C-alpha cells in the first residue's frame, strides 16, 4: 500500500479512537442527567423550592431547608477554604523550591486522595465531639478541608503556566515581588483560579459522607450554623434510603435541584468575574 494512504488511515484510526473515548467519557454524564430529568422533573414545582418536608406519609413538601443548608455550609466552606487554598497555591507556585512549598504540595496531594468520609470523621472528632452536638459549622469545616487541597493544586498549576517573561516585564517596571505576584501573575490566571475554585465548590456541594458526621441533617428550616443542618446531598441520601415510593421520587428531584444549584453558582461566579475584571481577566 502506498505509504501516504497508510499514514492517512492510521491518522483516521487514531482520531476515531479518540472520538470514541470522548463519547465513552461523556456517556455516563449524559445518562445521569437524562435519568435525573426523567425521574425528577415531574416532582419539581415551586413548592418544592419553597417548602420544608411534609411529615412522613403526607404528600407535598419541599427541600427549601436543604437548599439553604447547602448554600450556607458551602458558602462558609468557601470563606474558610478559598483564601487558604488560593494563598497556599500562590505561595507554592511563587516559591516552588522552598521546603515549606515542597511539604505543602506533598501533603495536599495526599489529602486530595483522602476519602471524604475520613475528613468527616476527622471534623467529628475535632468539632462535634468537643461541642457535644452536630452543627453546620462542623459541616463547613469538613467541606473546607476537602476544598483546600483541590483549590491549592489548581491555583498552583495555573500560576505555573504564566510565562516567565510576563513576570519579568512587571519586575522591570519596578513592581515589588509581592505586587508582581498579585497584580500580574494572579490577575492573569484569575479565570483559571475561578475555574478551579468552582470545580472545588461543585465537588463539595455534592459531598454526603462528611456531612453525615458533622451537619447530621435536619427536617426543619434553620439558618443557624451552630445547629444541625439539612443539606441537599443528605436529603438525597435520606429519601433514597427510605421505604416509600414517594420518597424515591423526591430523592431524584432533590438530586436534580442539587445539580441546578451548582450550575447556577458556577454560571453566576463566571459572569461576576467577567463583569468585575473585564475581558482580559
Amino acid at each position, binding site marked *: 500500500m502506498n505509504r501516504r494512504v497508510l499514514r492517512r488511515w492510521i491518522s483516521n484510526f487514531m482520531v476515531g479512537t479518540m472520538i470514541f473515548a470522548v463519547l465513552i467519557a461523556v456517556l455516563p454524564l449524559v445518562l445521569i442527567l437524562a435519568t435525573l430529568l426523567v425521574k425528577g422533573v415531574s416532582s419539581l414545582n415551586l413548592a418544592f423550592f419553597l417548602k420544608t418536608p411534609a411529615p412522613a406519609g403526607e404528600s407535598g413538601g419541599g427541600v427549601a431547608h436543604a437548599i439553604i443548608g447547602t448554600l450556607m455550609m458551602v458558602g462558609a466552606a468557601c470563606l474558610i477554604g478559598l483564601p487558604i487554598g488560593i494563598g497556599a497555591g500562590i505561595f507554592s507556585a511563587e516559591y516552588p*523550591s522552598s521546603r515549606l512549598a515542597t511539604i505543602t504540595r506533598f501533603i495536599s496531594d495526599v489529602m486530595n486522595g483522602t476519602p471524604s468520609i475520613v475528613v468527616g470523621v476527622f471534623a467529628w472528632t475535632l468539632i462535634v465531639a468537643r461541642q457535644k452536638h452536630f452543627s453546620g459549622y462542623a459541616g463547613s469545616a469538613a467541606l473546607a478541608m476537602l476544598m483546600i487541597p483541590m483549590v491549592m493544586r489548581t491555583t498552583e498549576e495555573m500560576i505555573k503556566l504564566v*510565562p516567565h*517573561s*510576563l513576570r*519579568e*516585564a*512587571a*519586575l*522591570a*517596571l*519596578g*513592581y*515589588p515581588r509581592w*505586587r508582581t505576584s498579585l497584580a*500580574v501573575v494572579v490577575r*492573569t490566571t484569575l479565570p483559571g483560579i475561578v475555574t478551579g475554585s468552582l470545580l472545588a465548590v461543585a465537588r463539595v456541594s455534592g459531598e454526603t459522607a462528611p456531612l453525615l458526621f458533622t451537619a447530621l441533617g435536619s427536617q426543619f428550616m434553620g439558618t443557624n450554623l451552630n445547629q444541625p443542618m439539612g443539606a441537599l446531598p443528605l436529603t438525597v441520601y435520606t429519601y433514597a434510603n427510605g421505604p416509600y415510593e414517594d420518597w424515591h421520587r423526591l430523592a431524584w428531584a432533590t438530586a436534580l435541584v442539587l445539580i441546578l444549584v451548582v450550575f447556577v453558582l458556577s454560571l453566576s461566579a463566571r459572569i461576576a468575574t467577567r463583569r468585575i475584571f473585564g*475581558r*482580559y481577566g
Partner: protein
Amino acid sequence: MTSTLEIPVMTPPPTPPIPVPSRLGQSPVKPRTEANYAIVVKDFSFHFGARQILDGLSFEVPRRAVTAIIGPSGCGKSTFLRSINRLNDLTPGSVYAGEVLVDGTSVFAPATDLVALRQRVGMVFQRPNPFPKSIFDNVAYGPVLNALVPKRDLPDLVERCLRAAALWDEVKDRLEDSALGLSGGQQQRLCIARALGNQPEVLLMDEPCSALDPIATQKVEELIFELKQNYTIVIVTHNMQQAARVSDCTGFFDRGILMEFGDTQQIFTAPKQERTEAYITGRFG
C-alpha cells in the same frame, strides 16, 4: 520540473553596508566628560553559583546615546544588561562583584531601592511581553504604580509614550482593546511605550528585534534612533548591521570579558583586537 529553483528567496531588508554606519554622521559626538556618562561600570564581575559569567568589566556608557553590546552567544551580554536593573536577583545563586553606577549611584548598594532603580532604568525584552490587558493599561501600568502623574494626566502621558514609540497612529482608535491583538512588531513598540511610561533615564534593550520581521525591525530601529535624543540606550544585539546602524558606541564581549569598547565607527572599521575583527567579519560566533 526544477522546482528547487523557484523557491522564493527572502530578500534581506535594505541595510547600509558595514562597516560604514550611515547614521553616525548625523549625531554629533558629544564631548566625553564625567557628567555625560549615564552608566559607569567598574571592575564588574558576575557569578551564577560557581560559574563565572562576567569578569572584570570596566567601561562607561555615554548619556543620551546608543551603546550596543555585541558578542557571540553565551558571552554574558544579556546577563550584563540584566545586572544593571538587577533583574538577575531573581535567579538563585547570583553574585555581583565590583560596581555598576547609574547616575553616580551604585545599583548594588544595600540601600538601593529596586523599585526606584527599575523606574529609572527601563527594559525591553527579546520577545514582546505585553500584559494581557488593554493597550492603554499596558502603558499606564508603570506610571500608576510609581504614582508619577496625577490620574487625570494619565491619558496625556499614555498618548505621549505611544507617540514616542511610533505606535499612536496605529492604536489611537482602539486603546481599550487587548494588547494581545496587536502584531508582534506593534507589541514590541507597545513594550517600549510601556517602558517609557515610567519616564526612565536609561533604556535597556535585550535583542529587541530578534523576534520581529524585517519591516518591524526597521521601525524599531528608527525608533531607537529617535529615542536617544532623550534617553540613554543600551542595546544587546546579535545583528552586526543593527549595531552598526543604531549605535554610537559598541562594546564587544567575549566569554565574559570586555574585549573592546569604543566608538561604533572605530570598532567596525578599525578594531584594535584581532578577536573583534574576527567576530565582526563573521569568522566565528
